[in-house]
């Protein structure tokens, strides 16, 4: 069991989609969870369905949604960095890693959730994950936390192999769905479809919820040399 968990993602809702189950299980086990959310998600394209946000109101709306999702999941320590969405790849990677390192040294997590650098599609995901791995690499080996990384690029399984951690989160799936609902501006289209399907086919409940009941992560082994960029960045 992990006692201190640090999740570090660029956007409000990254902690929820595909990950809220694992985080809710940690919360249930009594772990202290810290979430770093690097941007306000102010460049999101989804504005609700039908849309209720616009480019100028989206940041405040998404921060509020994040706080509400974190309450649902059981994350009490939420840190908003409020950087500009979709610009992390253009930031100085050393400075980004410095910022991550400060949090790592303060929180001393035994488990870190992040994306898998180069396999996470969105440039913010890849850039922040790279900073996280670089920052962890700076720690003495005995202080390095376990890393659970999410990957979803088209080539991820071909290159990385099967996920090393597959979690059954069915016992907290209702919590996860409520966290997804909390991110209303980003999830309304999806929840609407899911709820319609559940209403029309109540007998297919298990099948419809199955994708939400399983979460997959790749452990990043710092010494394996798999993360080739880490020494050069």
């Amino acid at each position, binding site marked *: 069991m992990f006692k201190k968990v640090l999740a570090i993602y660029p956007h409000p809702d990254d902690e929820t989609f595909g990950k809220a189950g694992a985080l809710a299980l940690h919360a249930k086990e009594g772990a202290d969870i810290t979430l770093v959310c690097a941007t306000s998600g102010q*460049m999101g*394209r*989804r*504005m*609700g*369905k*039908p*849309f209720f946000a*616009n*480019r*100028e109101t989206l*940041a405040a709306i998404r921060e509020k949604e994040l706080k509400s999702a974190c309450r649902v999941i059981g994350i009490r320590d939420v840190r908003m960095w409020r950087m*500009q969405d*979709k610009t992390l790849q253009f930031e100085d990677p050393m400075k980004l890693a410095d910022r991550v390192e400060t949090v790592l040294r303060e929180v001393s997590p035994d488990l870190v959730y992040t994306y898998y650098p180069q396999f996470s*599609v*969105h*440039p*913010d995901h890849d850039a922040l994950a790279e900073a996280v791995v670089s920052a962890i690499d700076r720690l003495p080996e005995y202080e390095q936390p376990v890393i659970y990384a999410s990957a*979803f*690029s*088209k080539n991820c399984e071909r290159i990385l192999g099967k996920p090393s951690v597959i979690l059954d989160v069915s016992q907290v799936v209702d919590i996860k769905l409520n966290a997804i609902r909390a991110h209303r501006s980003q999830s*309304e*289209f999806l929840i609407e479809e899911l709820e319609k399907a559940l209403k029309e086919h109540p007998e297919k409940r298990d099948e419809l919820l199955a994708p939400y009941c399983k979460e997959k992560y790749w452990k990043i082994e710092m010494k394996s040399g798999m993360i080739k960029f880490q020494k050069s960045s």
Partner: protein
Amino acid sequence: MEAIDLQKVQKQLDCYLNQEIYFHLETSNGSYASLQGEEEMSVCAFIRNGKLKYSHGIIKGSGPYSVGLKLKEGWVYAEGLTDYEVTSDNQLLLGGYDHEGRVNIALELSSRPFKI
């Protein structure tokens, strides 16, 4: 935001004539567009708090709409705009939303810098 009213947007465009103002212009097919198929790629253009001064600004079309701003030495335009709002800070927000409520394009004008 509400569906574009041509006259109201035109009136607001006339308010900024020949003044140095800030603009936000973006268009994107989404960071996940590359996941849609082998040949697909994500594209995006983004300018926040650029400055411009236009001598002629016009909205055209019957929905979706286009807005063109004629500068002393060039042009800025946006196509595919569906909704608008004039905020209490007198900012003109124009957005082009698709059937799922996603932003395809946005053009915004303001006398003061947009929040960053």
